[in-house]
């Protein structure tokens, strides 16, 4: 296995690993939203502005979980494609080796058709991989967008929390945890994007 293939395998495998961490964090946001809702309910009028924000947070967490679930399915397909491309490339290289070793054999020419077919399939796999990576990068961008939105919501939450009297600390803690989670999601997804971006369609 050459170093490019190795990095391709690592890049694809790292998506699943990074995204499983994103999934955990998104579930934490969802929990924080439920917690915030309960606090805002108890705070009544003092946290009136906070109540709709909790719905936003919850919605955002749900959408992120859904997006990540879809991306994971896609990442698995991409992994299978990587395995297939590796097998096809290995076969093509071996067939080329056969052609060299078979010089002078009565039926050496009959190897041409398998070589041509293997080359075509290998190139198709490579093109398909690039196309799929480009699409996956688009989906990862959507998760990044959600993370950015979560950070804006966290900032708004802090403002609303400042007006919640004795509930200030609890609501600020909610805002902090949403902000921290959004940061983590952003960083993890960004690492996926960097790992994959070298394979995208130019």
């Amino acid at each position, binding site marked *: 296995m050459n170093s490019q293939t190795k990095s391709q395998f690592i890049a694809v495998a790292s998506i699943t690993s990074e995204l499983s961490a994103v999934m955990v964090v998104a579930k934490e946001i969802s929990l924080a939203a439920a917690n915030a809702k309960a606090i805002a309910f108890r705070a009544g009028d003092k946290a009136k502005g906070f109540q709709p924000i909790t719905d936003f947070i919850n919605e955002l967490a749900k959408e992120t979980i859904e997006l990540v679930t879809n991306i994971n399915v896609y990442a698995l397909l991409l992994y299978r494609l990587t395995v297939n491309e590796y097998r096809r490339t290995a*076969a093509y290289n071996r067939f080329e080796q056969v052609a060299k070793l078979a010089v002078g054999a009565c039926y050496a020419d009959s*190897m041409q058709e398998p070589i041509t077919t293997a080359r075509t399939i290998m190139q198709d796999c490579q093109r398909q991989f690039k196309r799929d990576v480009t699409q996956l990068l688009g989906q990862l961008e959507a998760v990044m967008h959600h993370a950015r939105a979560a950070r804006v919501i966290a900032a708004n939450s802090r403002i609303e929390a400042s007006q919640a009297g004795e509930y200030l600390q609890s609501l600020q803690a909610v805002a902090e945890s949403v902000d921290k989670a959004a940061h983590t999601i952003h960083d993890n997804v960004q690492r996926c994007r960097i790992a994959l971006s070298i394979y995208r369609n130019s």
Partner: protein
Amino acid sequence: MKMTKIYEGAHQWIMFGRDENKPDNIIDSNQYIVRTANKCLLLEPGGTELFAPMMAAVLHHAPVEQITDLFASHQDPDVISSLGLWDQALSNAKLHAPALWEGYIRHFGCESIQYVPIPDNGETIKIESVELQIIPAHYLHSPCGFHVYDPQAKILMCGSVGSAFEAPGAPVFVERFDVHVEKMRYYHQRMMPSNQAKRAWVDRVRNLDIDILAPQHGRMFKGDDVKRFLDWFDSLQVGTGV
């Protein structure tokens, strides 16, 4: 890759082995083809490392499109781990291999090749007009294995039985049986698990008319050495690993 024609009649048997370019850390193995007018059966295709030299050697005898059948005596990687490569090279081929091992052997890659499962009691394979008997050889050493007998050529391809490991470039036929015995003893005692299975196989094979015993590793046996081998194997205590 050394090529030795071991039978020439209405069809041919060719033995391949002693690959000079084989990496040192993998065992040497023998491959065989049965060549008829328009078809070619490849027996024990070999490991992945062997694919290129093996395919190149076969091209001296048959074009790719006439390699229509493969046979694997059992599931070991030195027998059939090249399957994934043959699978991509051959457009219309069948693999005859033990039914018991189908789900295992498919791990090597088997998408376009048709897997023809061999039942436990064996069967017959027909390659054009050549009828080959698939002889059960279970627990020798694999729990499910088969050997190939060609009654016309009087050759028994006997898989792991009769195997020995030799220095590169060793002759393809046994020359002094008494010397060769010591190259086989440990392998057979350690790798063959059952005296009962061994006895059943010897009894069955004694009823076949055999000119050449063709194992998957080491030298082939011909003439009187065939009987010498059967007598020796019959009296050998196996399953000594416990």
